[in-house]
């Protein structure tokens, strides 16, 4: 019994670690899509940020500067997406695809050209990586049955970006549903013409949403290279941006749902790692590929309308053309 509990805690602990980048990217997509800008470039922005953070953290030996670098790269890519889809009214899907291509190519090319290690950045010096934080009293309560491990393993002992990610959930909820900016943001994703009529700039609002998206994907990417691992590895996002996109749909574009969707997808990932090559009671050995595909299968089932209905913001993907006379 106690052993099972320990295993469960360990799985949940890695769930939290694996969900964090998904959650940050998912919230990033939420701001963008709520404002009417579809973003399938989450993956590329995360990858670019991971590279930027890894490179700068290595050069400066400072994790915070690395984080800033990562956010900077992601914002640049986000502004490119904004320029293409807001100012130029281009196709937002195409722009997202382009950004993903650019990020994969440029990070590998520049990584090889600058560091000569097959596209990776060199291992980070000690200060270049976000260290795990032990919450107050964690050591003291470690041996208390049940509650001790929950506090020590699950809540304590993560790096700062994990706490940032989970704090961003209520913050996003508050911004979206309790501030004027949030109201306008949601309105511009549903009916930009109405927002425009009220004398508010659609373009400016959407650019702000896209920049917030850049900041959050920047943190998500930095988490991968300078918190979870110690350095950038070629193509290290490995589809996480797309899982975040799936989570966003699964969460029906709502912040709290987004957290649960990301935790679910992170949990599936943790289980897949844990169960590799192990047989489950009753079912037998489940192929690891099944768990890898499950987030996408679940999202498709959701989209099919079997688990409620996912309705995207009405104006998402539609460029806004201010009428000229």
């Amino acid at each position, binding site marked *: 019994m106690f052993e099972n509990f320990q295993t469960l805690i360990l799985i949940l602990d890695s769930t939290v670690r694996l969900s964090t980048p998904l959650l940050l990217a998912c919230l990033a997509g939420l701001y963008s899509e709520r404002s009417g800008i579809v973003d*399938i470039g989450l993956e590329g922005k995360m990858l670019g940020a991971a590279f930027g953070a890894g490179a700068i953290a290595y050069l400066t030996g400072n994790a915070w500067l690395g984080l800033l670098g990562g956010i900077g790269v992601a914002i640049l890519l986000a502004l*490119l997406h904004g*320029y*293409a*889809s807001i100012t*130029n*009214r*281009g*196709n*937002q*899907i*195409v*722009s997202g*695809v*382009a*950004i*993903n*291509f*650019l*990020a*994969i*190519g*440029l990070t*590998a*090319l*520049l990584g*090889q*050209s600058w560091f000569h290690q097959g*596209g990776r950045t060199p291992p980070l010096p000690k200060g270049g990586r976000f260290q795990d934080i032990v919450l107050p009293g964690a050591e003291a309560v470690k041996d208390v049955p049940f509650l001790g491990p929950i506090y020590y393993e699950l809540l304590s002992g993560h790096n700062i970006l994990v706490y940032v990610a989970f704090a961003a959930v209520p913050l996003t909820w508050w911004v979206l549903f309790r501030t004027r900016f949030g109201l306008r943001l949601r309105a511009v994703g549903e009916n930009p013409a109405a927002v425009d009529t009220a004398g508010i700039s659609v373009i400016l609002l959407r650019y702000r949403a896209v920049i917030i998206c850049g900041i959050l994907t920047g943190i998500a990417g930095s988490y991968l290279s300078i918190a979870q691992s110690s350095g950038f590895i070629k193509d290290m996002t490995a*589809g996480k941006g*797309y899982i975040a*996109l*799936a989570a966003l*749909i699964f969460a029906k574009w709502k912040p709290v749902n987004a957290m649960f969707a990301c935790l679910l997808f992170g949990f599936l990932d943790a289980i897949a790692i844990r169960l590799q090559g192990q047989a489950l009671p009753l079912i037998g050995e489940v*192929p690891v*590929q*099944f768990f*890898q*595909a499950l987030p*996408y*299968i679940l*999202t*498709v089932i959701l*989209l*099919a*309308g079997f688990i409620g209905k*996912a309705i*995207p913001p009405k104006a998402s993907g539609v460029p806004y*053309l201010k009428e*000229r*006379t």
Partner: protein
Amino acid sequence: MSAGQLPRWVDYGLIPLLNLAAAFLVSGLVVLLIGENPLEAVEILLWGSLGFGEGVGFTLFYATNFIFTGLAVAVAFHAGLFNIGGEGQAYVGGLGVALACLALDQYVPWWVTMPVAVIGAALMGAAWAFIPAWLQAKRGSHVVITTIMFNFIASSLMVYLLVNVMAKPGSMQPETRTFEEGGRLPFLNDLQSWFDFGTAPVNLSLIIALIACVLVWVVIWRTRLGYEIRSFGANATAAVYAGMLPVRIIIVTMLISGGLSGMMALNEIMGSQHRLLIEFVAGYGFVGIAVALMGRAHPVGIVLAAILFGMLYQGGAELSFEKPAITRDMIVVIQGLVILFAGALENLFRPALVRIFTPSRVPAVQAG
């Protein structure tokens, strides 16, 4: 800002060229950034892709892949659909090719296997596009999202099948056994003698791809179905009002598109690798988007764009060999830039060109 304001040669000739030039200009800057000479790089690239028989052969081999995936994206474009799932459809299409070859190769010659493999590829690719198509048609869930999801599901499924079901007995490699003669398409080198492609694997699939181009042109511009597809893409509401059935158009278009993607596997699996292996699609499905955008969703444009991308692939390989600093990732960067400038920033030069080419006697009121 709509089409029709500009002369056709500007719309279909000058704008794509300007976009392409911008993409290459920025690519040149990237080459400068990593400390190499862009002009020298272009020279190596051109020589590597067109300078000798084998280079031409590889260029055409890659182009074959791009023709199939480019056509797939283009057909969907005409119905206003964005099939981003070429990657998964081609991967599963490989399953159809491999099953046909594995079943027949020991008993019959290649020309008996070939039609079965073509049908297998197209059927499997189309099947993989069917569920996203059905969901779009019936449930209104966006085809872009579902096809992305299906790319990942395909990848997991194929890894599972190759590792656990189809792998050669006693081998740790996630790939099937190598096909016998009866499961191999002939190389173009063996079919003719007036041009030497060296060891390049360019094969009969190229001819099949060109036939597919003609068929796509016929279907889209010369049949009732094509008319419905184009009408639906241009104005879905009007098409429905004219009595066309949206569910049928969406599903049929996506099936054609998926089938074309699936046929890409013919070139790789039956034409070159002669076995089904992991990750053989390697991004060709995604590049189809760039090809279709560059080619303006017209078969002729697609063939030209496919050859251009084939040159990039082959020349890029040669380039990374000559200049180790410019790794093959440079090709991915160039693709990204082409997609960006030819697709997302399509309107970048248009306002300026409209100003240049609009005769001043047209009242300004009509613009906008």
